[in-house]
């Protein structure tokens, strides 16, 4: 147990304390104040890793969990996990501060809120620091579950429950796929540690399960990170409280998939499938998300689609960056690492400005009572600070100077332009698509950012359409977005601080093959002004076209409604869910009829078909009659008697005939026992048969309530086929067992019964001496049956209509 383990487990442990603190102090102090120190402590703790990590050190600690299965809580602190750790705890602390002002102390169940939040935080920390893939998976699922709980925080609302269920189904589906991928990786390499898997890369790339493992792992990453077409859960997750949307659905959880892709780039990267899938899915997600974000009228939905789009951007950059591995880490390939650098840089930038934007939207919602763009407007003078914050966040998202989004967007353009000149992966033909899509998506991004800022704050104020009288938010609520916005600006002016300390080590973790120092030199030389190059002209083009589109938005916004309602991913999801339920219900209703006869038909049909097929395939029937006893006339007569009585049971019209035929059968069998030299059996059979027949008569004939109906067993051809099948199967099995005697019976041993047990009757000696234990339990069976009969007759349900007293 080292400090890093304690830090990861700290939120879980503290979550236990939260309800007690809530119970004791909630009337005095908001519970959030007690929770806030936790992320702050972890943040400060993680800061001290920056120096060793940026000097290339790797910190690796193990805590034994299930050593015999190779599953240990191993932590690996490197540049990549450190970036995520700092984001999780830093933004976590700000979000908790924000929620203290956002969540009302009296009305809300705050203990639930903070328990779920702490669970999520701990799980996310565990996810990014785990080196063991199965431990990673455990934390991955805890993030899904705690996110589910947080989305449905206001569980009284049907929409919250719908959104929570949807995100649960999609992310758990992906999580299970990812587990399958992990198991394949573990099978191929024989180890569960990510670092060891990377060091045994040759086993993976040459293994037959390479492509399936890659696809399944990617499925997990895509569902979690809301990539196309699994992005549909994210807009519905906006039913969560706004601090949660800001934290989970912009800054942390949705980036777990990004983390996964980045973490496994050393394993799968360099393969053509990985390159194409990751970058193309990212590109599609980016343009789809930015296009649909323009349509939204709810501010949170707009931000949700913009998150989808930005995640697509980061994902496609990771895909493009993996191309550098295909060259085998040469000088020439180093130029493509800029894409990976841009991905990590934009990851940080996106977390800062998107967190801030969500908080601003939450403030607007809190102060006006609505998030609908059509009802908002003219808040510029009423809420100047929020306006400033949203300008910073929105311009950063649109990629304008002097904000950090500009830098990462320029790097993004650099990456796609270089990727379009890639000499491999048939990029010569398709490569040109990348800059075009990237540019178009960025134009839409610009448009929705402008809608976000100016539809909300500019224009005419409509106080009559707002639920509350709008005014500026309390200071405490403004501090977290102010901190994030100042980061947005600081990163723009001093990008090389994080470039040197965080980005470079993270690149070394994603692309570990680059041993020479020069490969990542670009990341410490990011600057705002780099001359008049293509990237800058692209940005200028975005601003011009974006402004034109924004101004003419009303004229062309009808394009979103040309597609019918049913033609969307959501309706496909809903229809699939509904259809699967109806189909499953239909199938179940079809075979679960409730009639015993049907179930017996299934059982017997299966029995006969399985056994007959088995006998036929294994050629099991072998007749060997050499050992058989001769047939005597008595036996023939008795067998004829059996057949006649059996047919009598079958064709009897009245119950009495059936019962008497059964009795006759029983007595004939007793006679057979006599012939086959079994005196004890004959005795027992006679008595048992007599008692049974008497019972039958008592229950079904002589009791006055019983209707005296006469009915023959109805003939049914299926019944005949099945019963014939069963009869033939049993006969065949008996015959083939006869023909295959494997060894002599042990019965000669029982001839010692006098010497060993003092009994001359061998059967009785077996029953009470050699195998007396069976008899004991058989007595128990009889006693239980007797008690059961007694209970059935005596006990009545109280208050039921029948007043019977026996």
């Amino acid at each position: 147990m080292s400090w890093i383990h304690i830090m990861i487990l700290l939120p879980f442990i503290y979550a236990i304390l939260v309800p007690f603190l809530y119970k004791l102090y909630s009337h005095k102090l908001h519970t959030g104040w007690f929770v806030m120190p936790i992320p702050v402590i972890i943040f400060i703790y993680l800061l001290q890793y920056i120096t060793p990590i940026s000097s290339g050190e790797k910190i690796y600690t193990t805590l034994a969990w299930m050593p015999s299965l190779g599953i240990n809580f191993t932590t690996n602190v490197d540049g990549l996990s450190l970036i995520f750790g700092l984001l999780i705890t830093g933004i976590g602390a700000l979000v908790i501060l924000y929620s203290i002002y956002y969540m009302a102390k009296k009305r809300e169940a705050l203990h639930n809120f903070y328990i779920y939040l702490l669970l999520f935080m701990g799980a996310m920390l565990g996810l990014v620091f785990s080196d063991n893939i199965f431990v990673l998976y455990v934390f991955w699922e805890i993030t899904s579950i705690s996110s589910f709980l947080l989305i449905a925080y206001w569980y009284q609302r049907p929409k919250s429950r719908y959104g929570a269920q949807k995100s649960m189904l999609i992310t758990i589906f992906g999580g299970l796929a990812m587990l399958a991928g992990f198991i394949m990786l573990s099978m191929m390499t024989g180890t569960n540690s990510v670092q060891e898997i990377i060091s045994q890369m040759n086993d993976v790339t040459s293994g037959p399960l390479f492509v399936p493992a890659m696809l399944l792992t990617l499925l997990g990453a895509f569902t979690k990170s809301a990539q196309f077409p699994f992005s549909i859960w994210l807009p519905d997750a906006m039913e969560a409280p706004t601090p949660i949307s800001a934290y989970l659905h912009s800054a942390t959880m949705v980036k777990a998939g990004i983390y996964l892709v980045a973490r496994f780039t050393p394993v799968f990267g360099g393969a053509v499938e990985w390159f194409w899938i990751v970058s193309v899915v990212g590109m599609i997600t980016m343009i789809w998300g930015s296009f649909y974000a323009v349509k939204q009228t709810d501010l949170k939905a707009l931000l949700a689609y913009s998150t989808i789009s930005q995640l697509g951007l980061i994902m496609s950059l990771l895909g493009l960056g993996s191309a550098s591995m295909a060259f085998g880490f040469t000088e020439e390939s180093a130029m493509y690492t800029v894409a990976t650098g841009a991905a990590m840089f934009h990851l940080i930038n996106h977390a800062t400005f998107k967190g801030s934007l969500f908080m601003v939207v939450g403030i607007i919602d809190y102060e006006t009572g609505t998030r609908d763009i059509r009802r908002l407007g003219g808040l510029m003078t009423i809420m100047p600070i929020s306006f400033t914050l949203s300008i910073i966040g929105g311009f950063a998202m649109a990629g304008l100077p002097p904000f950090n989004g500009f830098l990462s967007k320029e790097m993004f353009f650099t990456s796609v332009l270089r990727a379009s000149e890639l000499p491999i992966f048939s990029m010569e033909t398709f490569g040109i698509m990348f800059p075009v899509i990237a540019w178009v998506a960025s134009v839409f991004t610009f448009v929705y950012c402008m809608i976000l800022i100016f539809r909300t704050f500019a224009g005419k104020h409509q106080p009559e359409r707002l639920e509350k009288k709008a005014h500026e938010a309390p200071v405490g609520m403004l501090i977290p977005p102010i901190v994030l916005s100042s980061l947005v600006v600081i990163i723009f002016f001093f990008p090389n601080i994080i470039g040197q300390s965080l980005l470079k080590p993270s690149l070394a973790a994603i692309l570990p093959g680059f041993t020479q120092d020069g490969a990542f030199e670009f990341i410490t030389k990011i600057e705002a002004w780099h001359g008049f190059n293509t990237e800058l002209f692209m940005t200028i083009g975005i601003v011009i076209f974006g402004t034109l589109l924004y101004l003419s938005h009303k004229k062309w916004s009808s394009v979103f409604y040309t597609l019918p309602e049913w033609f969307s991913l959501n309706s496909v999801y809903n229809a699939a869910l509904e259809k699967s339920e109806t189909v499953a219900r239909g199938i179940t209703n079809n075979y679960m009829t409730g009639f015993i006869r049907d179930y017996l038909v299934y059982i017997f049909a299966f029995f006969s078909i399985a056994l007959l097929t088995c006998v036929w395939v294994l050629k099991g029937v072998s007749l060997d009659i050499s050992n058989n006893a001769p047939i005597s006339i008595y036996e023939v007569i008795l067998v004829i008697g059996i057949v006649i009585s059996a047919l009598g049971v079958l064709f009897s019209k009245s119950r009495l005939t059936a019962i008497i035929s059964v009795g006759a059968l029983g007595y004939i069998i007793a006679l057979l026992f006599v012939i086959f030299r079994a005196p004890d059996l004959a005795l027992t059979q006679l008595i048992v048969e007599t008692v049974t027949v008497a019972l039958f008569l008592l229950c079904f004939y002589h009791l006055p309530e019983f209707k005296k109906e006469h009915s023959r067993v109805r003939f049914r051809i299926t019944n005949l086929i099945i019963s014939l099948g069963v009869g033939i199967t049993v006969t065949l099995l008996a015959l083939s067992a006869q023909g295959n005697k494997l060894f002599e019976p042990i019965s000669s041993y029982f001839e010692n019964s006098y010497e060993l047990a003092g009994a001359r009757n061998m059967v009785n000696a077996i029953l009470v001496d050699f195998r007396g234990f069976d008899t004991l339990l058989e007595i128990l069976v009889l006693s239980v049956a007797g008690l059961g009969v007694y209970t059935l007759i005596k006990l009545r349900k109280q208050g039921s209509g029948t007043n019977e007293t026996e």
Partner: protein
Amino acid sequence: MEILMSITVGVFFMVGTYLLLSKSLLKVIVSLILLSHGAHLLLLTMAGLQRGASPLLSLEADSYTDPLPQALILTAIVISFGVTSFLLVLAYRTYKEHKTDDLEQLRGSADE
């Protein structure tokens, strides 16, 4: 002889199965009796029907029939008797409560 007995056992199983698939509760119980008869005879047949004396040492014969399957069948007879009598009373109670012994009318609850 074993072949004849195997066929007899087959007849027992066939008639038992046919009755088990019928509608009347009484016939179902009868079918269970037939099936257990079939199983007992099968046990006896499988042990071999060679002629020998009854398994009583006082007969002082050269060879005896196999006593082990007889002990097994004896146990089985008693157990199937216990189960049959319980089933009979159960069927009787069912009839008293529901006024029918038709299995199709006794089918599960109505809300399915």
